[in-house]
């Protein structure tokens, strides 16, 4: 016979079947099992009560002790908070050091001059995702030197990554981290503005262009000489004419009439803007190098001085998987357009504009073309053949000399 316990009956005396006959009468039967019977007696119940009581007392004692402990510990909270701050700081310095060493960052040089100089700068996030190797680039911006960089060229060539990399390097430098470059000298920036259009606010019911103008307004109203401005293809959300006008006006505003201004990276698809370089002293053109062979186009992702008039838009379309029929036809149209005028970039760009714009016009406005106007004005019935031929000759010459329709 032995004493056992389970949760349902508590304590019991376990008696095997063979011994049941010897069980005294005051035993109360509780449970029948395969091997025998289980009983309880008053003394057992007493003991059980004692044990339960003791357990409850133990529990409540434990709780009291614990509460008292917590109360005492409250006094240590200020010290703990200070300790936590200390650990946090050490952790941050070690983490930044680790990243710097693993990814070959360099300590930036800081000053209060209006200058950003980066040699072989890389985009910290993108470089980790490019297994083939990230192409580093230089930057030399200063308020009174190359203040504004106009960057033209294909969309896939690396423009956006480059501009973002410059901004991120400045942020990393000013927050006290090493930077992904071979060398970096950063003059303190008070603000960084970006107008990139990657995430327009369609949900709020405002048109893309309206959002763009709102952001641009914020920039132009708040920019200072110590700011960095990054504009990626402004003027895209409206007609070519308006967009170009706005883009040029913004350029001129940022350049300003004084001898210095905010450092600006200005990526654009309006190829005419490259002409601004000759008009404004602190504006320089740049583009991303492309290697063109008979069969292929390779984006080298290296920024070099000078303008380009090629967007490689159709190439990008092909890469994206646009049906061959469409890209081949586009090639045809492009060749035709180029051969018709001396400034191919303008007409070409108009077509790419039309493909990308939401609510732009469907076709170039035929009414605004002076050549067509002239043709319309011709009174054929009253002409001699010689007169007609002369006019035809004149018109052909006007077209060939690049007489722009606007």
């Amino acid at each position, binding site marked *: 016979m032995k004493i056992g316990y389970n949760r349902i009956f508590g304590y019991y005396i376990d008696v095997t079947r063979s011994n049941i006959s010897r069980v005294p009468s005051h035993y109360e039967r509780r449970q029948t099992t395969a091997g025998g019977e289980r009983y309880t007696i008053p003394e057992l119940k007493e003991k059980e009560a004692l*044990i339960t009581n003791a*357990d409850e007392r133990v529990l409540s004692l434990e709780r009291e002790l614990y509460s008292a*402990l917590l109360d005492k510990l409250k006094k240590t909270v200020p010290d703990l908070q200070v300790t936590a701050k200390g650990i*946090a700081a050490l*952790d941050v310095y070690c983490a930044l*050091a680790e990243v*710097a060493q693993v990814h070959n960052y360099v*300590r930036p040089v800081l000053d209060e001059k209006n200058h950003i100089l980066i040699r072989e700068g890389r985009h910290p996030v993108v470089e980790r995702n490019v297994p083939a190797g990230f192409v580093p680039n230089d930057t030399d911006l200063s308020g009174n030197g190359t203040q504004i960089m106009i960057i033209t060229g294909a969309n896939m060539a690396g423009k956006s990554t480059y501009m973002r990399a410059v901004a991120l390097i400045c942020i990393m430098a000013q927050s006290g981290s090493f930077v992904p470059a071979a060398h970096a000298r950063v003059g303190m920036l008070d603000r960084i503005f970006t107008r990139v259009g990657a995430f327009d606010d369609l949900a709020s019911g405002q048109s893309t262009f309206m959002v763009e103008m709102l952001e641009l307004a914020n920039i132009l109203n708040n920019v200072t000489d110590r700011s960095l401005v990054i504009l990626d293809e402004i003027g895209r959300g409206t007609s070519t004419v308006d967009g170009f006008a706005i883009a040029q006006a913004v350029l001129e505003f940022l350049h300003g009439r004084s001898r210095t201004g905010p450092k600006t990276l200005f990526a654009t698809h309006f190829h005419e803007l490259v002409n601004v370089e000759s008009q404004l002293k602190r504006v320089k053109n740049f583009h991303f190098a492309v290697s063109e062979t008979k069969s292929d186009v390779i984006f080298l992702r290296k920024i070099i001085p000078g303008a380009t008039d090629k967007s490689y838009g159709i190439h990008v379309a092909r890469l994206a998987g646009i049906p061959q029929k469409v890209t081949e036809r586009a090639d045809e149209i492009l060749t035709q357009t180029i051969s018709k005028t001396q400034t191919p970039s303008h007409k070409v760009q108009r077509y790419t504009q039309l493909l990308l714009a939401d609510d732009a016009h469907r076709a170039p406005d035929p009414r605004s073309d002076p050549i067509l106007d002239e043709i319309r004005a011709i009174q054929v019935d009253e002409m001699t053949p010689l007169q007609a031929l002369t006019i035809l000759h004149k018109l052909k010459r006007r077209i060939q000399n690049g007489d722009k329709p606007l």
Partner: protein
Amino acid sequence: MKDAMAEDVIIKDIAGNLSPGMRQYMSIKARYPDAILFFHIGDFYETFFADAELVSRELDIVLTSRSKGSTSKIPLAGVPYHAAEGYIAKLVQKGYNVAVCDQLENAKSVKGIVRRDVVRVITPGTVIDPSIILSTDARYLMAVCPGAINGEWGLAFLDISTGEFFVTSISAENSLQDLLSEVARYHPAECIVPSCIPEEIITAIKNLAVVVNPYRDDAFEEQNARNTLALQFHVSSFAGYGCEDIPAALGAAAAALRYAQETQNSPLPHISGLSTRSTAQCMMLDATTLRNLEITESIRTLAKGANLLSCLDCTKTAMGSRLLHNRVVRPLIDPTEINRRLDAVEFFVRRPTVRHALRALMNRMADVGRIAGRIAYGNAGPRDLVALTVSLGLIPEIKDLVNGQGEEPPALVRDATFNLHELPDTLTLIKMILLQQQRTDVLSGKVTLQNSMNS
């Protein structure tokens, strides 16, 4: 086990009048109209009426109804009492406030209606429970207080779990833009506002995925604010905190503190000071730029690695992670100060062995900042205390590593190390009381007789 408690909340008696239990519910609910009221009955937290419909929908639990003889049914939805935290967490994550109404006395020993009252209100910005805030990021409650005519606006940010508390001010002219920049910078979970804030500002804040709740105007009022803060911090002037001359900042801070105290039903003594962050001391990064440059969040991919912060954040502690986040969204503009930080980083760049050893030690550290918050609030569990002893026990080694370099470490490293308190007496005390036990359910009293039999 029969649910003896349920009988005291029979909804209606035979005559169709509300039972005493339901009357108790109604009077409590009247005090918390904007929160979901979790009402403890037996083994469940029950919700009624509109709350029940909402809870049933949001948590995907069954909506039933109760009625006794009358024609109108009262919608009812409940969650198990012992498993409530997870459900509360889900609701709070979705932006709701939850008021938890517990039984204040032992139901077994009471005849009639058990006394009940709300013991805590959990709002998105004031959670302190570790089971609800799963991430290690700072979780801010924000308050906005407009200034007097053309005066500066005050913004306050409070992280209850660690006690971090700071204010900043924005000029009246560009208030909306600057306000949104600060919201984007700190990503508060909840924002409280006085009634005078225009609807368009509230909408703009909501559009940044922040829950906005109104709070009593008198909490923001300057004189009340000064009294509240003076009482909490035991100071008579706020010049030491840098915001003596910004009444709107004091208003915002006091409102945030009171809201937190009310919802947590605790004076929150670990909130013992305030700091002022001037927007002029750092590089301005507006909400658009933070987004466009993918500084803390990537635009297109939801994958974790595609933003600046995740590239830089290989910290080993939650406290370090929060600090790094703070530093990246607030770059400085003073070269001297930045160079001090760079000196600290360079110190560890040049010493890879020390760095690796230090990181290995910090890897074993718990979130001391949050544990301190829980100790102050009174709900630190035995696990927290054990983690604390382990963490504090690492400090002597950390100090040795840093100081044993033969040369004086740079200023910021020296300061940080100096601030590490070993607290040997506290450690001894904790170890003595907790002894060999690792009972994590002491407070809930769930230790069964079975267990105690075995020990």
